[in-house]
């Protein structure tokens, strides 16, 4: 089962490597990982998407919590939450037909073309993991994907619930 872990930790050198190291040391899976400082610059927030059964998830949460730099950890996928991921994708857009089609698909998915070259479009799309996958599949049927970059997901609990110090 897929889980999303939001982790609040000290913005210290090496703190991220402890988390990554822990996942490989204990043979936990990382599907995606994002990290950046929060509005409070002394804190970083890491979001990890992972796969595992309940027993594995329990161990992951406990093991991450045990790291001295970690302040809080919360699992998001089990309850109401919002999640977003950013996709940048560069596709071939040579003929008028293919340009129109790519633009149309992008509009339908509520993405935007953010750069164009002589023969390429670069598209930005934000959404859930599922939505991004669907967009890529659709593009693949229409044109050739030259490169793509995904941020990995970030998320938050819905409503008043918050992960903060």
């Amino acid at each position: 089962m897929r889980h999303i872990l939001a982790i609040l930790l000290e913005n210290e050198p090496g703190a991220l490597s402890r988390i990554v190291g822990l996942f490989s040391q204990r043979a936990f899976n990382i599907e995606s990982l994002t990290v950046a400082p929060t509005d409070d610059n002394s804190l970083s927030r890491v979001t990890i998407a992972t796969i595992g059964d309940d027993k594995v998830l329990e161990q992951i949460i406990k093991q991450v919590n045990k790291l001295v730099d970690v302040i809080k950890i919360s699992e998001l996928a089990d309850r109401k939450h919002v999640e977003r991921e950013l996709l940048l994708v560069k596709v071939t857009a040579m003929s008028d037909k293919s340009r129109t089609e790519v633009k149309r698909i992008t509009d339908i998915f509520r993405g935007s073309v953010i750069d164009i070259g002589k023969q390429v479009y670069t598209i930005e799309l934000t959404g859930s993991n599922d939505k991004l996958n669907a967009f890529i599949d659709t593009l693949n049927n229409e044109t050739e994907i030259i490169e793509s970059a995904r941020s990995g997901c970030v998320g938050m609990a819905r409503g008043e619930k918050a992960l903060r110090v």
Partner: protein
Amino acid sequence: MTTELFTGAEMVVKALSALKVKYIFGYPGGSVLDLYDAIFQQSEIEHILVRHEQAATHMADGYTRSTGEVGVVLATSGPGATNCVTGIATAYMDSIPMVVLAGQVPTTLIGNDAFQETDIVGCTRPIIKHSFNCRDLAEIPNIIAKAFYIANTGRPGPVVVELPKDLLIPQNKAPFNIETIVKMRSYNPNIKGHPKQIRKAAKTISEAKKLVIYSGGGIVLADASALLTKLVETLKAPITNTLMGLGGISGLHDNFIGMLGMHGSLEANKTMANADVILALGARFDDRVTNNVERFCPNATIIHVDIDPTSISKTINAHIPVVGLVDIVIQQLLDELSETNYSPDEESLKDWWQQIHIWRDMSSVSYKQVEGEKIKPQRVIETMYRITNGEAYVASDVGQHQMFAAQYYPFAKPRQWINSGGAGTMGFGLPAAMGVKLAFPDKHVICITGDGSIQMNIQELSTCKQYNLPVVIITLNNRSLGMVRQWQDMVYGGRHSSSYMESLPDFTKVAEAYGHVGIKIDTLDELDSKLEEAFSIKNKLVFVDVLVDEKEHVYPMHIRQGGIDDMWISKGVKG
């Protein structure tokens, strides 16, 4: 007013003094020479020069296990620091607090593959509780204070502090500020057990018909021995100890049913397998305890008390988890039992003990010594127990001798038994014994070892000479790697692949070459007198080389993949 300024090297020493450190175990080298210069110019802290950095870590470890005080290791960058890795892993696996100060090349050179540069923080990341890269001179004192706090609270463990050379040199100075009472927003270990869980646990205990207490190293680390004994006597229940927990309750206590696990007693393992409630205190259901987890004690309700939540339900699901310091939780349990007017159910206790006595009468921990034949290793342990009145500190290496010592030397007190249980580090015994002897110069300190293990840190005989550490080394010499050989006999069709120790030295001569006394024992009739002689020599290290029967196996032993009580109790005989 001018503020006094200090070099980083001076700050390290001042910080260690402020934390009441008495000894540093270490070895100098290029990047820590400034620190060694600062150590030279003071007298509060004594530096113990080992002959290999691994031994420094084990010596600090032995010192800590016997005293409870945090051991401090100092090594230079690169190979000095990497030589500490095995010792750090050993401490980590057994939750031993330790602070390792590792030199590093100057910050300007970090990442350049400079001479003697190793990313020691990176190397040790999976085997430490925490680590620090110092990058600012002024932070050194508080980093060291934090290192001690983290190492010695919660579930204890080793902490590495990396000190780049440019932070230590005389040219750079800063004011000295230290807060010895540490507060960290990200680290607040849970201390008290949750009251609801305590109530649940107490209720389950009072309803149990076949209760067993299974206690581990956590009891020793938390100095919870007296409280544990009180709990055992309140519940009148049987108690078994893990290898790490020996001495947590006296090995001579009526309720003690021996060690459990792979080489535990049959009665301990049978009691576990048939219990309806298992109260696990500071133990972690290690694979050497459980045998096949799928078949582990299927009928028991498990109450698991541990300071580390990750230990709970990691291998065996706990029905009633209690996170907290084990001494505090035991007190909470005792209070709860007394508030609910607990009294043991004498009738079911009688039945339970009757059953346990039947298992005990099978005398699973036993051996046969025939006069005139080779000395049995078990006999050596029993003899050293008798001569030392069971009061010696016993530091063990790893192998058959370790198991024989655990089985045949009942420890009356915690911290008497010093061994590498989790990591199983050969070479641990001698330096650990040295650390104990340093702390307790007037006590008998034994290093029980084998002809394989002793050679993994034998160079420390030189350190023993320098600092006058007259430990008694007892080598159960079977001319082979006994435990490896035993497995090869039992599992690999008797093919002794690389388990012989060919071209062994004459250990007594090695000892003499280092300035110590060597005694060789090769027949049974001289065992008593020569061991007595060895223990009568007080001011010199004695190396006793005992030639024992190389064919002896350690029994009882788990049958692989079986339940906890599926055991061989002697060659080809199932219990």
